């Protein structure tokens, strides 16, 4: 099937408009992100504690806020997580001054007081296989005889089956659900019921990043992004010419900044995975641009002496079907990730989705015009490259205007 064959669109005609438009959007995004502090810094970089909890009942956020506030954790943020009806919440607390270890225990304590009225028995929704097995071993309701190892093995198997059910349900809501656990005898159930309790929540994930690691992760994330950008600039510089390197780098910077602006606007959390997403985006964006530049280089060699703007336009047209096709499949793939990939990678897929769309636009409307601009501003000063000396004089300002 032919798709956008033999187009002849003058992409470069409105380059000033597009560059201006993009710069405006970039500046707005950058101001919002860097000066207004709109970026929702996750605990990876800001440090702090984050708990993901599954509750038995519909969470009452306002009430929970008060509970945490009373426990001295005024600055906690509570938000819903996951699909509606799943009763999942996310609690985030900033770094506790002077401590590396965070407030997870404090939060769990406060919630325990609130929901479970400080029941001293072990909470089946919080302990794991080892502890359940130990409770059963201590009581030995099944009357297993023999070596301690045999007894332990028997109850470990039972405990594992209890945990398998909890893993499926995320938490036990009633003793009936525990009674239904396969392999749990009536006596064992009775002994669990007397030794343990069923709390109203279960921690799904607990994360704490202390100030030391937080600042280190910030540094490393920054180095990764800057390093990747510089690495690519150098690679393209070696493989092509500086002006193309600049064009490609500008294009990916453009993609990153605009996506970052959108990301901040959507209020997604900025964390380690975000850095990975942005680096992938940079890779994709440069990839997209390089392919076009590759054609530009080929055409420059084929039609020596033709002016750069025409070469750029021709190359963009020739590559148009490829650019849109590749961009299209990548957008489709990230759309699926975005829609169905779950909450944990929502931010990641959002970046890829927006980034690829913006990246496709920028490899057409930003990268090449920037290469051309660089040529116009610095082309005569550019010291080397035969192809450059041939094309440079023709892309004089008279023609460009």
């Amino acid at each position, binding site marked *: 099937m032919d798709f956008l064959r033999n187009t002849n669109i003058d992409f470069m005609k409105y380059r000033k408009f597009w560059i201006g438009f993009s710069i405006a959007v970039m500046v707005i995004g950058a101001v919002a992100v860097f000066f207004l502090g709109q970026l929702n810094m996750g605990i990876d970089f800001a440090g702090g504690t984050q708990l993901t909890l599954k509750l038995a009942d519909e969470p009452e956020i306002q009430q929970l806020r008060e509970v945490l506030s009373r426990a001295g954790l005024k600055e906690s943020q509570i938000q819903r997580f996951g699909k509606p009806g799943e009763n999942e919440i996310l609690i985030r607390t900033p770094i506790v001054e002077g401590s590396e270890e965070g407030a997870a225990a404090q939060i769990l304590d406060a919630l325990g007081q609130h929901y479970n009225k400080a029941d001293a028995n072990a909470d089946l929704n919080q302990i794991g296989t080892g502890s359940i097995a130990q409770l059963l071993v201590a009581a030995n309701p099944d009357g297993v005889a023999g070596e301690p190892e045999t007894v332990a093995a028997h109850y470990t198997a039972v405990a594992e089956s209890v945990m398998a059910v909890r893993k499926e349900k995320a938490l036990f809501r009633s003793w009936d659900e525990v009674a239904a656990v396969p392999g749990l005898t009536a006596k064992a159930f009775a002994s669990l019921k007397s030794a343990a309790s069923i709390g109203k929540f279960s921690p799904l994930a607990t994360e704490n990043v202390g100030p030391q690691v937080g600042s280190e992760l910030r540094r490393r994330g920054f180095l990764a992004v800057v390093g990747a950008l510089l690495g690519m600039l150098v690679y393209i510089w070696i493989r092509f010419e500086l002006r193309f390197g600049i064009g490609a780098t500008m294009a990916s910077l453009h993609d990153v900044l605009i996506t970052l602006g959108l990301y901040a606007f959507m209020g997604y959390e900025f964390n380690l995975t975000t850095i990975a997403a942005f680096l992938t985006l940079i890779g994709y964006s*440069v990839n997209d641009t390089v392919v076009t530049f590759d054609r530009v280089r080929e055409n420059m060699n084929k039609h020596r002496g033709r002016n750069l703007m025409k070469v750029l336009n021709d190359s963009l047209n020739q590559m148009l079907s490829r650019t849109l096709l590749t961009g299209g499949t990548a957008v489709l793939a990230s759309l699926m990730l975005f829609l169905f990939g779950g909450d944990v990678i929502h931010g990641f897929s959002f970046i890829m989705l927006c980034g690829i769309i913006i990246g496709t636009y920028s490899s057409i409307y930003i990268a090449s015009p920037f290469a051309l601009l660089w040529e116009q501003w610095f082309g005569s000063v550019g010291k080397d490259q035969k192809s450059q000396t041939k094309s440079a004089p023709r892309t004089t300002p008279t023609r460009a205007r």
Partner: protein
Amino acid sequence: MKKGLLIKGGFIVGLALLSILAAYPLKDKLNLGLDLQGGIHLVLKVETQDAVRAETDKDMEVLRREIADAGVSSVATSKIDDLSFDVTGVPIEQDAVLNKAANDYLTSQRWDWRREGSKTTFKMTSLNERNVRNLAVEQAKLTIDNRVNQYGVAEPVIARQGLEGDRIVVQLPGVDDPERVKRLIKSTAFLEFRLTEYPKNGGGGVATRDEILANYGGSLPADVEILSQDQKDDQGRSLGLRYYAVQKRRVITGRDLKSANTSAGQFNQPVVAFHLSADGAKMFGEATGANVGRGLAIILDNRVVSAPVINSRITDSGIIEGNFTQQEVQDLVTTLRSGALPAGITYLEDRTVGPSLGQDSIESSTKAGMLSMICVVLTMVVIYRGSGVNALIGLALNVVLLFGALSYFHATLTLPGIAGIVLSIAMAVDANVLIFERIKEEMKVGKTVRAAIDAGFSNALSSIMDANITTLIAALFLFQFGTGPIRGFAVTLSIGILGTLFCAIFVSRFLFDLVYTPTRKSQSISI
């Protein structure tokens, strides 16, 4: 030509089979990251200063005893800081005794000392300090390893972060009892026995700090500190704190323990029974013998566990009582046996993922991945027809190779890693698109099918290489500076890129060669 095709085909099929062999069954072979299977990731810091302080305390005490034993009973020591102390009370004419004791018991490599007037100042050498710190981290690593093994975790990772430095990374996949395990690892089980100063006989401590301070007229002597004890009723409920003033000097520490066991006390309550090493027994006997009637605080991780009265000289064994539950005694014995940690531990980073969250993540990301794949497949077949199928075979092979490589290299598949796979598949299509578009262009110029295929591949090659190398650069930087899940992502992305190059350039070419043989008169190509 035919033979060449056969060899290529054999190579491709062989590689695919090897990958399947390496990755089958996927469930067992694939190493899932902590974010997918649940587990604990910890970065902890060994407070090596504790070890240095303990070393100084110990050497100072040994030296004092040896000098006293050699007949200079007026000898006294006082600590300056964690790295140095003064010895006083040794008359100048008996300096030889001091020097002999120091040379015998503190080898000259470990301490420098200089006499100035009536006092001799000892300073730990920097070499010794480095050794002590390094040893503390190594020992902590071993101890944690012991504890984790005793607890029973499959495939734990316990490694120092970097060659030097005081950090240890602990990864415990599949652990579903995070709070308990974290306590178990962290409890330094730093056990100390110290004499109480107020109340002199222990006596259950006092209710407030102020009461102790008042006793000393507002400020504590330099060698005394206040420690607290948790009071609990028999239901395990907290009854508040009791306070003791205890000497800073330790009689013995957990290091002097030879063994520890669970046992039952006089009221059948759970207690820890211990035996001391010969060295420890000597020191313990001396201190208890000289202080009958005083309280002896048993301190675990800077908390008073109990402070019984010394009734008589005790040498090589004893019990530790406290308000312990059976489980607490069990865990305490585990930690004491595995060797007390040589120094305190601080968790700098702690990420725990429960089993059900990981399960959810696997389900949703697999679903999203499948759907992405279907989208890509449909697009390719609709646009490129027969050649689209060619691309799909390449893609399928790419996926097989990817999982083969992940399994073979024991790389870890993380949640971002799954996203990485989906993306690298989507981007792998790019290489095919580049080639196919090029073939179409070459056909437009009037080339035959064969010639167009040849030209298409060779002309698209440099673009494909450039495009993928740039992404590889990004992946390398991610790997270099990333941690945990992000590294997993970088690895899958990199493997995906290499697979893409192989499939698009080599496999796809092979398939074209196979279908459009030079002898075939075909003038059309399904593209």
